[in-house]
């Protein structure tokens, strides 16, 4: 158990360690008692610290541990311990230079013509939040807050046409800006810089990864929602007035859509307490006999629910189909166009139609 085999595991080890040590005052790191006895167990113990909070842990000054680690050997566990110190230093550095780095970042975003859909002020406020979230992730190793923020950000900017490459681009820019600032700071000490980068790179990658994944997930959610909306909209059931529904059908009807249509119509009748439904099929070029039969069945089923159906806008081809399959026409109430259908519906509902009103006005005059 001296070394952990996979880098993925090591990464979680690494993150776990930083998450834990962050909760402690600066110069202390938490180690278990076993850890002090032998170096071979360090990896395991550092990793399990996160889980083993109940076990009594002792606190040792961090400097001592570091020193001993470096002297004995330089395996990954030593690096991870060093990493947490480095990270803390790193975070402090980034906090100090917050304004300057953020401005540099915003400038690079503008220069790179990214986020063109957003105004300067918006970019400023969003970059501030991203920057703070970024540092928080570096500091705590926990990406949950960032994930939530990235989702809400995506929710806001996706409708405005911000592309994936822009979002990934700005995060990578920030990574670049911060990286450069670190280079500048540690350029005189290559060894130290290496260690800083060891601490910085994995966390930065994780941040970039999280933001990109959140953005794409949000985008997929929006797409799913829209697909659902299109499915719903393909057979809208509209209430024109009390007790009167209109079902305008546009486009080809296959048996799947016909079934959905029937279902929506029958539910619509129940929900709106409709007495008359006008089904307008002006927008349907042609139907096959299965769908025609289905249409007739829908009319029948509506009658069983106490609503009469008026079909309008039958094209000559559809009329031909209906006659060919021998539909019982006495049950079908068909009217030429939608206007006629609504007038007929108003008559059935006992409402004075516009025509009738005009007629009575004329007779009065």
């Amino acid at each position, binding site marked *: 158990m001296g070394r952990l085999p996979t880098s993925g595991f090591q990464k979680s080890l690494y993150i776990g360690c930083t998450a834990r040590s962050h909760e402690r005052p600066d110069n202390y790191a938490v180690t278990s008692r076993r850890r002090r006895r032998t170096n071979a167990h360090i990896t395991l113990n550092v990793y399990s610290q996160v889980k083993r909070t109940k076990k009594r842990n002792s606190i040792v000054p961090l400097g001592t541990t570091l020193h001993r680690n470096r002297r004995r050997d330089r395996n990954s566990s030593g690096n991870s311990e060093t990493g947490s110190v480095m990270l803390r230093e790193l975070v402090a550095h980034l906090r100090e230079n917050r304004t300057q780095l953020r401005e540099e970042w915003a400038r690079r975003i503008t220069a790179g013509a990214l986020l063109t859909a957003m105004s300067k002020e918006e970019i400023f406020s969003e970059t501030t939040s991203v920057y703070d979230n970024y540092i928080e992730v570096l500091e705590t190793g926990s990406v949950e807050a960032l994930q939530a923020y990235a989702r809400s950000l995506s929710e806001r900017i996706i409708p405005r046409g911000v592309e994936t490459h822009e979002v990934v681009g700005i995060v990578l820019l920030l990574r670049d800006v911060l990286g450069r600032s670190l280079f500048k700071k540690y350029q005189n000490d290559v060894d130290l810089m290496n260690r800083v980068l060891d601490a910085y790179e994995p966390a930065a990658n994780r941040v970039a990864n999280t933001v990109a994944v959140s953005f794409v997930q949000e985008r997929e959610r929006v797409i799913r929602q829209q697909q659902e909306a299109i499915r719903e909209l393909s057979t809208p059931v509209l209430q024109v007035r009390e007790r009167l529904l209109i079902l305008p059908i546009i486009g080809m009807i296959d048996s799947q859509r016909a079934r959905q249509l029937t*279902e929506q119509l*029958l*539910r619509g009748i129940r929900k709106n*307490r409709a*007495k008359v439904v006008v089904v307008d099929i002006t927008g349907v070029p042609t139907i096959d006999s299965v769908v025609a039969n289905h249409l007739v*069945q*829908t009319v029948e089923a509506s*009658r*069983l629910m106490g609503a009469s159906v008026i079909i309008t806008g039958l094209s000559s081809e559809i009329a031909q189909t209906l006659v060919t399959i021998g539909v019982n026409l006495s049950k079908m109430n068909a009217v030429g166009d939608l206007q006629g259908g609504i007038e007929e519906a108003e008559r059935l509902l006992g409402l004075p139609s516009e025509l009738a009103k005009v007629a009575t006005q004329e007779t009065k005059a």
Partner: protein
Amino acid sequence: MHVPVLKQGDYLIASVQAALTDADLLQLRDDLADRVGQFRSRGVIIDVTVLDVIDSFATRTLRAVAHMLKLRGAETVIVGIQPDVAFAMVQLGLTLEGVGTALDLEEGLAYLDRLAKRNRNHGTRSTN
């Protein structure tokens, strides 16, 4: 499950409370025929809102009830057929020809009122 039959003015309301066996349906038919004579009802509402299934026997019985009651001077209206049930019935070819249908109890009462009014108008016109 026995179906309670309530009197409401000129109308009778048979409100089905649970799934019905064939025997229950026949019982309902006989009950309604008796009550219509007893109360001199002008209309009957059969509320089937709770039924998830209306099979061919039920359809035939309901149609028979409607025709029978018509001969005894009452109109029948079936109310509360659920969307799924309605479509299933139509697919099986059970369409309750010649029987009035309405969305719910309220609509059923309105339907009977309308019929009664029409009959009255018709009556006065014929005497003229």
